[in-house]
């Protein structure tokens, strides 16, 4: 993946809606700004050109009007004519220069320092034109770009085809500038209105994209949070987002179907286990009944056989006796014990499937009370095996009372059962608060479980380690089923010869005060 630019990082966590708005408004803003800037620059240039053209016209008009004054050397009249420029507040000054570079007449606006106009040679009397400055002014006047503090216009005064002088007009750039500022202000206002319109449009139109995405996101949230596979995303159109929604719905439909199927199968298996174990008992009862029937039949048969035995020789009599006394008895004994064992196994399976099917009655439970009750019932064993029990204050959980008693009972019973012989027992019950759950630990200093056997302990009918105590390998299987029924998990940490810790979590009240 490419590294994100700071620009991308800035927008990364914005919503689609915000991103779309940002994209539109940024684009619009940039275009508006660029267009406005270009227009203002263009207008500034053309306004400048227009101002210069107006200056040229004014200069020409003055030129015509002062030509007679120049011809008749009447500088007073020329000065009066020039003074008419007063009407244009932007004109800083004007000079009429005769062909011999003397200043014939001049007008300097109020408040303008003649020196700032550069044209007069300082200290000359009669005033003369500074030729070098004049050349610079000429260059400025000819330039289409030059934009210093003033705009100059130089026009020749022609009388009867002869050049008799030059008129130089200086105008403030302010005229151009103020017009440009006005224009820029107006354009800014128009741009703002345009921008606002763009905002209105984009805030409406962005929903074309953001709405379907939002719908899809909501559907995904519903599916993941509530595991509700029945929700469907709204298909808003025939575009890619529509295709995405259709695909998403298709996926959900598949998952929903599979989920239902799995639930059905699960149900079937539970029922199957129940029915099988239930139904398997019937033939077992028959076997049990008929084997005892067989036993009593043989017993009834005994006197008759004894009579018959008289007719047999010694060797045959011995064989019959062996069959009757040992083989049949032994076989019947095996049948009986096997039947009993099988009955026990089936009973266990039945219990387990009952546990899986039983309705849990969830209620707030005081675990300290439950654990204390169980420890009290085990007091005899604890005393006998000289076990030190430590128990912290346990928190409240929400669970089924019977199930919790079974879980705690099994774990504590196991802990006492598998203590290391010849060592004083130690047993501790602790708890810790996890996310929305309480984790309970039952810790002993017993014989421990080998790493290889660890997976076996929770399995049905499986036992690990030395088989020196009575047990069917059912306890932890029950515990595991019960914990799982509560939506929890059970696990074990153990070290052979040192001890084991069985931990499980159960849902806890999220907030004791009841506020979410």
């Amino acid at each position, binding site marked *: 993946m490419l590294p994100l630019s700071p620009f991308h990082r800035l927008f990364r966590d914005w919503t689609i809606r915000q991103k779309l708005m940002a994209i539109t408004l940024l684009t619009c803003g940039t275009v508006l700004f660029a267009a406005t800037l270009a227009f203002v620059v263009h207008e500034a240039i053309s306004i400048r050109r227009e101002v210069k053209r107006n200056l040229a016209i004014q200069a020409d008009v003055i030129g*015509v*009007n002062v*030509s*007679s*004054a120049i*011809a*008749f*050397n*009447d*500088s*007073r*009249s020329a*000065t009066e004519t020039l003074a008419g420029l007063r009407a244009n507040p932007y004109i800083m000054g004007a000079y009429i220069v005769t062909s011999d570079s*003397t*200043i*014939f*007449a*001049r007008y*300097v606006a*109020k*408040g*303008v*320092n*003649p020196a*700032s106009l550069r044209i007069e040679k300082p200290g000359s*009397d*009669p*005033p003369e034109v500074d030729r070098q400055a004049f050349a610079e002014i000429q260059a400025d006047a000819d330039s289409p770009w030059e*934009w*210093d*503090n003033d705009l100059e216009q130089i026009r020749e005064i022609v*009388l*009867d*085809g*002869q050049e008799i002088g030059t008129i130089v007009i200086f105008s*403030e*750039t*302010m005229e151009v*500038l103020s017009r440009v*500022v006005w224009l820029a202000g107006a354009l800014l206002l128009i741009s703002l209105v345009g921008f606002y319109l763009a905002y209105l449009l984009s805030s409406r139109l962005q929903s074309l994209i953001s709405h379907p995405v939002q719908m899809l996101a909501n559907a995904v949230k519903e599916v993941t949070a509530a595991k509700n596979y029945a929700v469907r995303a709204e298909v808003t159109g025939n575009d890619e987002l529509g295709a995405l929604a259709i695909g998403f719905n298709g996926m959900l439909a598949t998952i929903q179907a599979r989920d239902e199927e799995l639930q059905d199968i699960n149900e079937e298996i539970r029922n199957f286990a129940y029915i099988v174990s239930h139904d398997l008992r019937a033939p077992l009862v028959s076997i049990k009944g008929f084997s005892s029937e067989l036993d009593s039949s043989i017993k009834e048969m005994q006197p008759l056989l004894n009579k018959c035995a008289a007719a047999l020789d010694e060797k045959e009599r011995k064989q019959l006796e062996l069959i009757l006394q040992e083989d049949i008895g032994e076989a019947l004994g095996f049948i009986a014990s096997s039947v009993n064992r099988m009955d026990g196994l089936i009973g266990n399976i039945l219990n387990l499937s009952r546990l899986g099917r039983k309705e849990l009655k969830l209620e707030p439970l005081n675990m300290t009370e439950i654990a204390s009750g169980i420890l009290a019932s085990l007091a005899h064993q604890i005393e006998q095996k000289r076990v030190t029990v430590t128990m912290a204050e346990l928190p409240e959980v929400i669970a089924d009372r019977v199930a919790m008693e079974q879980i705690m009972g099994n774990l504590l019973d196991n802990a006492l059962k598998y203590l290391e012989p010849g060592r004083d027992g130690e047993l501790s019950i602790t708890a810790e608060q996890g996310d929305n759950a309480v984790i309970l630990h039952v810790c002993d200093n017993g014989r421990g479980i080998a790493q290889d056997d660890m997976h076996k302990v929770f399995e049905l009918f499986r036992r690990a380690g030395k088989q020196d105590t009575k047990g069917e390998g059912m306890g932890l299987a029950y515990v595991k089923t019960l914990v799982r029924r509560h939506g929890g998990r059970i696990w074990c940490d153990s070290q052979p010869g040192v001890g084991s810790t069985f931990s499980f979590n159960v849902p806890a009240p999220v907030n004791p005060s009841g506020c979410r």
Partner: protein
Amino acid sequence: MTLLYLISKLCGVANRRQVTFAGLVVLLLVFPVLSGKALAMDGLAEYEVKSAFLYNFAKFVEWGAQGTAGDQQELGLCILGKDPFGGGMDAVKGRPVKNRRLVVKQINGIDEMGQCQILFISSSEKGRLSEILAAVGRSPVLTVSDIKNFAQTGGVIGFVTIDERIRFDINQAAAERADLQISSQLLKLARSVVQ
């Protein structure tokens, strides 16, 4: 720099007020100097200026159809009486005016006025002025003279000297009689215009 200037302009930095007074003082000092150039005129210089004026008058006067009927290449400037210009006319002699060439002629009598568009009446003819003007009558000729009250007497343009500056009066009625159109530019410069 330009930007700084513009900003200062926009902000209305009032440096200007300070220079206003200085500007006015400079103007007051310079103005008399400007006009002073025309003041120091005497003797020959006076007639040099007058000759230039005569030449320039031609540029601001329109002759009627009759007045320009003659030679199309030349514009005649005739001097009647004693020539006061000395060599002063040499500067304008032959120069172009209205696509013609200025020709300067010395004439001794009004009867020689045939090819003249401008007639300068020398002050030597002061005594015969009314006679001459009567003789010119309605002829399309621009009469000019430095005889006192020339324009008021019936001539078209009369030179006057005021504050040692050469100026002129114009007799509009006389100009109309001679079928001459005098440019407003010229009228504007006249000391007085006689209707």
